[in-house]
């Protein structure tokens, strides 16, 4: 791809833009926001909403064109609503038409606050309406869901049970066909269609069939209005109360980019965050619903021999066990951050010869789905590999006799394969750092609660060798809990001669840079919200040589 920019003229001002892109994207580069409904950068172009109209200079003079369908060409001249009365009027017209048959639902609509229709109405719409009850509305709906309301008005489909996860309001649908295109093009399973025609057209599944797909909740993200809403989020929170933290899906090694939305110490939902190189705009339903288990069953204290203890008592007990031990097995985790694993490796070094690091996971690896999952549930497996941690859990079980102390960090060995893990129960001291009361905690002699993925900052390296950043949300149920890396620091202070010198996770990250060429020089700023591809080791070595 050539980086050469081309020149176009927008509202009389020349701009440099990327060649070959849709005009609507080019306008974005020029800091011109174009209202739109049907256009979505990760779907095919439908061009049906007509909201993105601009005036473009053509062979027969300026003509109204939709900016989502048009490709930029050198020398293109366009006028937007900023300079063209015709564009303003056309967009106002489109807005008016969109509202003609739209129900007056905003106060009870889950989309209110993030509804594109509402937003664009404020911007381009007529603030004075000439819509009148006298000419009536034509509400959209399948025959199966039509009803007559108390005023005798023929109504469309409301609260349609579209599937296990989604509720549909056919009246609110503006027929942009995004969801249809998503199911056809991305999910590869056409279950939605717009049936009928004219102003009575409506969105539907085959009558009687339910929408069912691992990614179907993505349709609720891309639906520009409150037609498709996730049942899991209905009436939970008004969206304008939610604060957003950028993070990475912790359940798959593709590392789908997500936004954690939280309010009042609680995560209310996980939303996909667009990253063209990773997950586009999509996340798996299971990823999305991870937040539901997040606050449940948390281990916020320590457990010593099965009894609840304070965290510091837990650290004391753990340190004593480590100190006493002749041989310690430390198990790293591909579910935790690069920093956490770095700390684990460093702790092993601090403990000297008596410590040995193991790694890996017994969770089964599935096929990728080509959408937003690689199939490997060990999201940060690559970090472990780059830190030189071997995938050798089976060796650990084979040699369990050699050890008298086991430290497992965020890796639920018993949860993944209780039968295999049973061999480890012969190890006298079993120290488990975990965020939840999981099966491993149940088998621990000492368990210590740590912060979970949503509550820490740190780096995940995905299966494409891309470093991505998790950020901490203020939702930790017990403020005195440590992130795993810090828990290890604390442990090393108590149990090793040389405490780990990490004041913050950044120090751990820098230390990790010493272990592998590809990790050298990483910083949170460099990774940024969209991540960076790691430089392959050979190239990195060359560059530094």
């Amino acid at each position, binding site marked *: 791809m050539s980086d050469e920019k081309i020149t176009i003229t927008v509202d009389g001002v020349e701009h440099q833009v990327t060649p070959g892109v849709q005009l609507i994207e080019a306008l974005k580069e020029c800091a011109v926001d174009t209202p739109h409904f049907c256009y979505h950068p990760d779907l095919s172009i439908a061009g049906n909403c007509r909201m993105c109209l601009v005036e473009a200079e053509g062979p027969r003079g300026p003509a109204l064109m939709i900016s989502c369908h048009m490709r930029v060409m050198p020398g293109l001249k366009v006028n937007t609503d900023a300079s063209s009365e015709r564009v303003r009027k056309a967009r106002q017209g489109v807005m008016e038409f969109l509202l003609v048959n739209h129900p007056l639902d905003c106060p009870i609509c889950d989309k209110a606050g993030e509804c594109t229709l509402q937003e664009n109405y404020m911007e381009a719409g007529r603030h004075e309406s000439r819509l009148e009850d006298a000419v009536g509305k034509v509400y959209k709906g399948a*025959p199966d869901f039509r009803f007559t309301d108390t005023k005798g008005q023929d109504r469309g489909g409301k609260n349609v049970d579209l599937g296990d996860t989604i509720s549909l309001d056919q009246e609110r649908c503006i027929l942009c066909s995004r969801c249809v295109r998503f199911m056809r093009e991305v999910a590869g399973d056409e279950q939605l269609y717009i049936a009928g025609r004219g102003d009575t057209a409506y969105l539907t599944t*085959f009558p009687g069939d339910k929408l069912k797909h691992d990614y179907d909740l993505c349709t609720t993200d891309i639906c520009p209005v409150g037609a498709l809403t996730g049942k899991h989020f209905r009436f939970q929170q008004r969206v304008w109360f939610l604060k957003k933290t950028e993070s990475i899906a912790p359940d798959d090694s593709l590392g789908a980019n997500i936004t954690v939305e939280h309010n009042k110490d609680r995560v209310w939902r996980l939303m996909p965050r667009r990253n063209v190189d990773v997950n586009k705009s999509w996340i798996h339903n299971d990823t999305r619903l991870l937040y539901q288990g997040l606050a449940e069953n948390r281990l916020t204290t320590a457990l010593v021999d099965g009894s609840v203890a304070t965290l510091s008592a837990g650290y004391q007990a753990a340190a004593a066990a480590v100190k006493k031990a002749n041989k310690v097995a430390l198990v790293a985790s591909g579910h935790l951050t690069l920093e956490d694993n770095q700390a684990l490796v460093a702790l092993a070094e601090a403990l000297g010869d008596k410590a040995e690091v193991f790694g890996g996971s017994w969770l089964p690896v599935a096929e990728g789905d080509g959408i937003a999952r690689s199939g490997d549930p060990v999201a940060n497996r690559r970090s472990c590999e780059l830190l030189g941690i071997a995938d050798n859990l089976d060796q650990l079980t084979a040699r369990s006799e050699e050890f008298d102390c086991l430290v497992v960090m965020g890796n639920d060995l018993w949860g993944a394969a209780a039968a295999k893990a049973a061999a480890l129960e012969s190890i006298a001291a079993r120290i488990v750092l975990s965020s939840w009361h999981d099966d491993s905690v149940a088998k621990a002699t000492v368990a210590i609660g740590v912060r979970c993925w949503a509550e820490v900052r740190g780096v995940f390296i995905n299966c494409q060798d891309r470093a991505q950043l998790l950020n901490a949300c203020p939702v930790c149920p017990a403020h005195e809990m440590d992130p795993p890396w810090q828990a290890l620091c604390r442990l090393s202070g108590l149990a090793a001669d040389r405490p780990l010198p990490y004041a913050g996770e950044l120090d751990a990250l820098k230390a990790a840079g010493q272990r592998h060429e590809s990790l050298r020089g990483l910083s949170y700023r460099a990774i940024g919200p969209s991540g960076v591809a790691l430089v392959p080791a050979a190239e990195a070595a060359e560059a530094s040589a």
Partner: protein
Amino acid sequence: MSGCNAQAIIDAQLDLTIEQVRERMQPYTARVAELQRRYAMKRGVLLQALWLIQEEFGWVPRIGIKWAAEVSDVSPVHAYGVAEFYTMYRKAPMGRFLIQVCEGMCCQLKGANDLIAHLEQALGIHAGDTTEDGLFTVLRVQCLAACGNGPSVLINDEFLYGPGELNEHQEGWSPSAADLDRWIERLRKEAEAKPQPDKVDSLGDIMLDTKGHPGSDGASGAPLPKDYAPPPPALKVKAESQGSAITVSCLCAPEITEASVERSTDGGTTWAAIGTIDVVKTPGVPGPPGGPKTPSYTDEIAVGSTAAYRIVAREAEREARPSAVAEVTAAAVSDDGEEGGKA
């Protein structure tokens, strides 16, 4: 789809399994196979398959839509969306005789509304409804492309646009209220005489043994040979003189790869090749890249002499027949700049 109110549609749905529908559609196998041969992808069959369902059931039940989806290799919801789009697929059963009256602009001018009102009165129903005996349904429809005989009327699938039988056309004839009364009477009698209506072939009796679209499932049609048509000769050959300089120009098909210019100085008896002519696309000629080309060639002959030119174009190995001949006499350029002779 056209039809009745929401409840009626839901109530009408059949309690059949897809296996039972497949069974019932057995007699249509030959037509389905023929249709599947006809399109590059089976999807093309969908509209016709829905017609077959309507032929069998008299309307399009949802379970029938699933069958149509199967034979057309599309998702059921696709087929449903499509069935709902077109007005002629009936969402629920209708009367044995469907009388459709056009309410378009021309037919309204000719009194369509009165005619519909008359029908409503005569049958005791509103347009859109079916008589209680299940015999008649009246529909207002859009232009039926028989405006010259407006108000246009269709009885089932047959045009009423002449005084005789259905489909017997008479220029300028218009149905009157009395004509419709007569037809209602006649149809009632027909129903009495024949309680079970005959099935009408919904695809208009298609051929069943065509070879099909080359490459489609079950098709045996051979693709076209690349060179079934003769190679294209150069067209519009012109020779113009600018003094002794002769410009020979022509119009060449995009597929022309090479063209040679031939000259005759004996009035077309013997020809000699004098050179080849560059056939790259000329800018400014309408059409995409690969549109026609207008190449030219410059020759030199003595002022006052006459020569004939023709062009022999080639499309790869194939030589086209020689173009038409253009004759030119090289004229001296006169002082006032006037140009020489033309062919």
